């Protein structure tokens, strides 16, 4: 097919050439510039930039909150996906559409409204703060906005798998005498497992890089509520470009390895599923 296409359809070299050109100029070249800049630092400079106490606190906070948010989304997202696929209830299509809102809503708006909801006088804060739950300007707030921002990922990876799931396997399982829980645990869950892992990894990866919403709700206190992207911006505002780049490279390496990991996991689970 392809050889026929290339002989008959026009524009192969032109479109491929433009694609590679634009990709290189806008994406690959800047990423390379970031690594080249980091490589121009000496090893000691690099280490002293990425391994300070403040930076370590920022990494721990970034990964801790992202992990918690991804775990929360794993539970919440699979419940939402299950409910959307298996049950019918009024307003289901609206709920289905609303799941995508965090992808469409600017992160700054998300951060702004979450910050105002959970302060002492806010709609939710006025009930939560007396109970001792302070979400605004705290680590809990960071987890909350990250859950919001990465909400669609688990739902949208699990949902199609669940829709395609072969109901006959379930019927067979129950007619062979399995309880509902056994069917879920031994028949449905293994099928969903790869999608759950992918969704988790995507939510986690998205949370690590998130900046716009966190900056509103975290209060940005060094050592306490300062995540790694905020630290990069702080270094930039001090015109410490080398240090900012070093931390950025650490983040880049981590997110690229996450990307490769996700792809490997998908390949592995596809083989495992067969």
């Amino acid at each position, binding site marked *: *097919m392809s050889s026929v*296409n290339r002989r*008959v*359809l*026009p*524009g192969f070299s*032109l479109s491929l050439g*433009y*694609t*590679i050109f*634009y*990709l290189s100029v*806008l*994406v690959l070249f*800047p*990423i390379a*510039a*970031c690594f080249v800049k980091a490589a121009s630092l000496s090893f000691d400079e690099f280490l002293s930039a990425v391994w300070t106490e403040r930076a370590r606190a920022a990494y721990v906070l970034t990964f801790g909150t992202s992990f918690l948010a991804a775990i929360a989304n794993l539970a919440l997202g699979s*419940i939402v996906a299950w*409910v959307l696929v298996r*049950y019918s*209830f009024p307003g289901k299509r609206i*709920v289905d*559409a*609303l799941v*995508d*809102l965090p992808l*469409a*809503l*600017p*992160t*700054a*708006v998300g951060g*702004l*409204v*979450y*910050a105002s909801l959970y302060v002492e006088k806010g*709609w*939710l804060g006025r009930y939560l703060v007396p109970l001792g739950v302070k979400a605004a300007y705290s680590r809990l707030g960071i987890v909350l906005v990250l859950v*919001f921002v990465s*909400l*669609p990922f688990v739902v949208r*990876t699990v949902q199609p798998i669940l829709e395609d799931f072969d*109901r006959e396997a379930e019927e067979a*399982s129950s007619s062979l005498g399995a309880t*509902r829980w056994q069917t879920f645990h031994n028949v449905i869950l293994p099928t969903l497992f790869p999608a759950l892992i992918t969704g988790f990894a*995507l939510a986690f990866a998205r949370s690590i890089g*998130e900046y*716009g919403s966190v900056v*509103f709700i975290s209060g940005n206190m060094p050592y306490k509520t300062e995540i790694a*992207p905020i630290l*990069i*911006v702080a270094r930039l505002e001090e015109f410490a*470009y080398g240090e900012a780049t070093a931390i950025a490279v650490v983040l*880049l390496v981590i*997110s690229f390895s*996450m*990307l490769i990991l996700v*792809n490997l996991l*998908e390949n592995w689970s596809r083989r495992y599923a067969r």
Partner: protein
Amino acid sequence: MHVETLGGVAVPPPVAPVAVRRPQEDPAWVRVSLITIALASIAVLVVIPIVNVFVEALAAGPGVYLQSLFGDPDTRQSILLTLTVVPIALCANLLFGVTAAWSISRFQFPGRTLLVALIDLPFSVSPVVAGLMFVLIFGLQGYFGAFLRRDGYAVLPYLFAFWGAALLVIGFALFRPTNPRARRGPWRATWLAVLSASAVLFGLLLFAQQALQVWPDHKSLKIIFATPGLVLATSFVTFPFVARELIPVMDAVGPDEELAAISLGASGWQMFWHVTVPNVKWGLVYGIILCNARAMGEFGAVYVVSGHIAGQTDTMPLRIEKLFQEYNLPGSFAVASVLTLVAIFTLVVKATLEHKVPRVTARIGESTASKGKP
């Protein structure tokens, strides 16, 4: 008890249907509690925040709302800036998306899977890091910073000449009749002619610079802390959207109709405009509105390259942050409500298009390469 007999065999009376739950359905209490959990979490995470945006924005009445949107010159300027930056980034990514989808879903070539993976790369880069990259290249201390500051305007004719030449080449390739025998007049020209036309264009622009001083020497060109930087950062962050939505749709449609059009003598443009675009239009619209929503709302990357010069380089999301820092909550929420309306509009279009395009998941690393094969 009356027992019917059928040829001497006793037939048991039919069992009255009892409302028994089929064993492969969840018990009612599970169903109710799961639906409750799902609805409650969507309500707390999504619905209450949206409602809150509009209530806070309109809290002091519609007069104050309009005043804080259009009365404040800096806010007005931020709206204008967003309306300048977003269309440029959108057009650039649209052109890229179409060419990328065309080359990837219509042709096989070595490195195709890698190319698909690379297109997704910007998704895994933190927006702040994306902004930082452009600062490293074009910022004052960046690789091109000193040169751009000294005489950045000298670059412009080369840039324009490059784009002009690219447009010439694209136009030539699109409008030239596909059948060699149908090529008459200028269409008989070879690529050499196109290249020399580009060279003439380049010469003209260079002449305009050197002799007419259209772009004077020793004038600094600001990219970082100015609109070009905002465009670059926004384009980077929204880079994959159109291509990602378009590739699966184009894969699903297949090349048959295009092959037919070409073999019936259509030019590249005729094939593209009359066959390809109608076939993939919903995927295209879908990609554009998603790209638009993300471009309008981009914060992190733009934050780093903008420099926050009030009334000059603040886009709408940056304006929200600045008003928030100044404790001007009504103003902040007024701008936020506009962006929320854009997001809701995006969702409505998305929901209506959902059944027209193949289901597009929110997966990032998803490889579309395997789907392309028939």
